[in-house]
């Protein structure tokens, strides 16, 4: 036990004395940035793909779009996130001659990746909404897209909110792979503290603790949102 106390002391020394907390704060910031912006991009892409998938396919254009979306989803669900990250950072962007900071690349890749997953979540959400809602909108003269945006998608999002919360939690945890392209996230920050103090036990423990707290806070927020969105269900 005395040994452990020593390790804690050593950690605190580096964490506070050697400005380790600044690194951690930056890492935390990046982790949240990547997860939050990734989720936002993912919701936008996922919703677009989901709508393409539920559009009636009499015409050629929806069929072509549907094909593209199928390929997109297959690619991003069929390869590991690390591979997508490496491909973007070391292959795609250099080939295009674009130079972006690794955190930005991570945000885009996380967005593209979660878009593929969210599209399936969103599709099931849209299909869970009573078809009568679409009919009600169309019958009164609203277009397919207007009815989708104003009536169907809000109800779909309400239905899939818990699943979206899960997706966000997954994203937060997955940010630990961005170290592969040299971005500073929570994991890299604690890794650095460990390297500086030649002691990894306490930094990794604290790191795990921070991840758990993050996830618990997010689950709580999702529950709150669910409750406020359930307003229209009162009396049911």
């Amino acid at each position, binding site marked *: 036990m005395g040994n452990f106390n020593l390790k804690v002391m050593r950690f605190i020394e580096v964490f506070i004395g050697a400005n380790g907390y600044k690194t951690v704060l930056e890492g935390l910031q990046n982790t949240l940035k990547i997860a939050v912006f990734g989720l936002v991009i993912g919701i936008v892409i996922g919703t677009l793909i989901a709508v393409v998938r539920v559009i009636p396919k009499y015409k050629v254009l929806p069929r072509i779009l549907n094909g593209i979306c199928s390929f997109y989803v297959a690619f991003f669900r069929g390869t590991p996130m690390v591979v997508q990250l490496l491909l973007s950072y070391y292959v795609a962007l250099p080939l295009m001659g674009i130079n972006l900071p690794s955190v930005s690349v991570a945000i885009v890749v996380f967005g593209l990746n979660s878009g593929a997953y969210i599209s399936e979540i969103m599709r099931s959400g849209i299909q869970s909404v009573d078809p009568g809602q679409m009919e009600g909108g169309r*019958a*009164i003269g609203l277009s397919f897209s207007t009815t989708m945006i104003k009536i169907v998608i809000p109800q779909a999002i309400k239905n899939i909110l818990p699943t979206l919360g899960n997706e966000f939690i997954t994203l937060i945890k997955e940010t630990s792979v961005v170290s592969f392209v040299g971005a500073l996230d929570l994991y890299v920050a604690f890794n650095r503290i460990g390297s500086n103090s030649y002691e990894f036990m306490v930094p990794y423990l604290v790191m795990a603790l921070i991840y758990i707290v993050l996830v618990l806070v997010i689950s709580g927020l999702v529950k709150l949102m669910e409750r406020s969105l359930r307003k229209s269900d009162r009396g049911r």
Partner: protein
Amino acid sequence: MIEVVNLNKSFGEIDVLHDINITINKGEKVVVVGPSGSGKSTFLRCLNCMEDPTSGSIIFNGVDIADMKVDINIHRQKMGMVFQHFNLFNNKTVIDNIMLAPVYVEKKRMKKLRRNNPQNEKIKTTKEIKAEAKAQATELLKRIGLEEKANAYPSQLSGGQKQRVAIVRALAMNPDVILFDEPTSALDPEMVGEVLELMKELAESGMTMVVVTHEMGFAREVGTRVIFMDEGRIVEENNPKEFFENPQNPRLKEFLSKVL
């Protein structure tokens, strides 16, 4: 007002409607009856192209709306529809349900006006549009005695209240005709009366109505013309008196003997 010419509809291999021809004039209350599976709901849904006709035309105010090139949304705004299951927007309050389409249409119209002439004095702001729509919606709710439910959600209403709101939602667009698809079939018996009462009022106000229903009393009392459909065809049509007292077709006689 509506002229149906050689309307055919099939779902895959199954032919549901055969060569329907009918003209519905302004102010008429056409009631469509028939056994289930006779195609009466499909016929009604073809009138506003909720189901695309397989062939034939639907001429509404001089335009063939069955033509895929026509912007159907503009014409549907003038053809209200009331459904068996109400189809109120669950994520909107009662008043928003009624205001949604009028506000949307008016906003679109203003956009067009502004594009043609930004100085046009007739251009209203979104605030004005909403205020107008709200006043109209409140007026409509008052008419059905539900103004205190304006901010309730559909899930907080009874079936009869939902259907009455659905009817005034259609009215808010000032339609030329309202199509009713079995409006009382999903209601508890004690709520049928209030909905039929409102429909009667509408009929008296001169609204053109096409009603698919099993309510023979309503057909007799309110209808100006009753149509009997069987196996996708209009088998008999007549004024209500003749229709019920002197049916000609054997299938209609059999049907009436069962339902009356």
